[in-house]
């Protein structure tokens, strides 16, 4: 994993506007992710969080603005190019290949890699998720929801990303599993991978993150250190229900 720290942010999003046939969903988004930072993306359903992840992984086209990764312009690069350059996406609902083995699902994350260290990374993923060790030959679809999320995150890690984006880590998972997965996410982050966490359990996300962005109707309405965002009266009322 990268150890050098650089003055410029790892990921820099400027004035990003994007959407679908029906019209824009994102309007002039500015967002930074520094090396080894854990950033939470918070907002109501429909605010544009998943669309933003879609643009960052090349699945949705930007109509204006720019995305810079490690100093290089990657705006509207193709998904496979973005994976190769270091952006991995763990999609909402895991999207595993259910009838394929856990091992094959994990290896798919490394599909574009031609280096000789894929097996080392597989060992690293299994260090993060020891529960998967004796399930490598099982069909992914037969695993519990929590284990499937482990495979989905592991598949993302197998691309050896600079930025790992996780959409709805906690979706449909038991509280204890969510806490465990958050611990692993922090571990991955400590090892040097930057993370973007989209999460409906806002408290969980803000507790884990260094910084947070709040999206409303496709715009960033608040950003700052996660602790400050958590204590913001508007956030407490609109998202935490306190």
């Amino acid at each position: 994993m990268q150890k050098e720290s650089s003055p410029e942010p790892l990921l820099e999003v400027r004035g990003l506007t994007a959407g679908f046939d029906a019209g824009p969903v994102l309007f002039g988004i500015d967002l930074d992710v520094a090396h080894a930072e854990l950033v939470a993306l918070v907002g109501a359903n429909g605010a544009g969080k998943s669309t933003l992840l879609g643009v960052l992984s090349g699945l949705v086209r930007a109509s204006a603005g720019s995305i810079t990764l490690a100093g290089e312009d990657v705006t509207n690069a193709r998904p496979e190019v973005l994976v190769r350059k270091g952006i991995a996406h763990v999609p909402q609902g895991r999207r595993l290949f259910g009838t394929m083995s856990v091992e094959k699902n994990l290896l798919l994350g490394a599909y574009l890699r031609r280096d000789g260290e894929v097996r080392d990374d597989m060992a690293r993923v299994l260090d993060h998720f020891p529960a998967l060790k004796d399930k490598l030959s099982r069909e992914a679809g037969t695993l519990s929801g929590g284990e499937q999320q482990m495979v989905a995150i592991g598949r993302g890690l197998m691309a050896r990303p600079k930025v790992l984006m996780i959409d709805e880590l906690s979706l449909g998972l038991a509280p204890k599993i969510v806490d465990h997965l958050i611990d692993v996410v922090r571990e991955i982050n400590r090892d040097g991978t930057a993370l973007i966490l989209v999460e409906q359990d806002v408290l969980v996300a803000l507790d884990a993150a260094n910084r947070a962005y709040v999206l409303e109707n496709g715009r960033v309405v608040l950003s700052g250190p996660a602790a400050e965002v958590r204590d913001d009266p508007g956030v407490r009322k609109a998202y935490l229900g306190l």
Partner: protein
Amino acid sequence: MAAVDGVSFEVARGEIVGIIGPNGAGKTTLLNCISGMHRLDGGDIRWQGASIAGMPPHRVARLGIGRTFQIVRPFGSMTVLENAAVGALFGSADARRGPKEAFALADDVLGMVGLKSKANHPVSSLTIPDRKRLEVARAVATRPHLLLLDEVMAGLNNVEIDEALEMVRTVHATGVTVLLIEHVMRVIIGVCRRAIVLDGGHVLAQGEPDVVLRDERVIQAYLGERYAKRIKP
């Protein structure tokens, strides 16, 4: 291998009961058994005094047991109202009259779940919380006496959950008994009078939520220490 093994419980008329438990504990399988999607290998399920074990899903629905599914699958080419009307057309004996009545009932139900203003929208335009509302509307439009809800609040934030809880209270107030699966304790504490904890296909605990959620076995198997400290039953 049995996903649900020797489970016994009762739901009284007018209750809202929550089912919680680890992933893979058998919660959805249990709902599948009740709604006729999954055959029993043993035991019995009695509804208003008579056995419904082994009955196909459409007959269970006609007897007044409605359900939602974790993965919502609305008819994509139809409007919100048309989707809800499908429930009315193929639902319980109380619901099934003619198409005209079905649409009138569907319209009422959309009001109940807060989707009336979107009745003529295509379902593709709905946000996730609204899709969940429509999933509930389709089940409520079958005019069930018992409504089985499978994680209809997953993926919602706390404020969206509070709105969805209002919807459950509204449906419940029309005389519908509710049995729901959720991982969000805000829901269990917010509307359930009783919670049943499944673990490994067995009932680990059941009772009032504030007692069950403090049960050391439930914390060990399901909540985890950290989460248990965060919730305030």
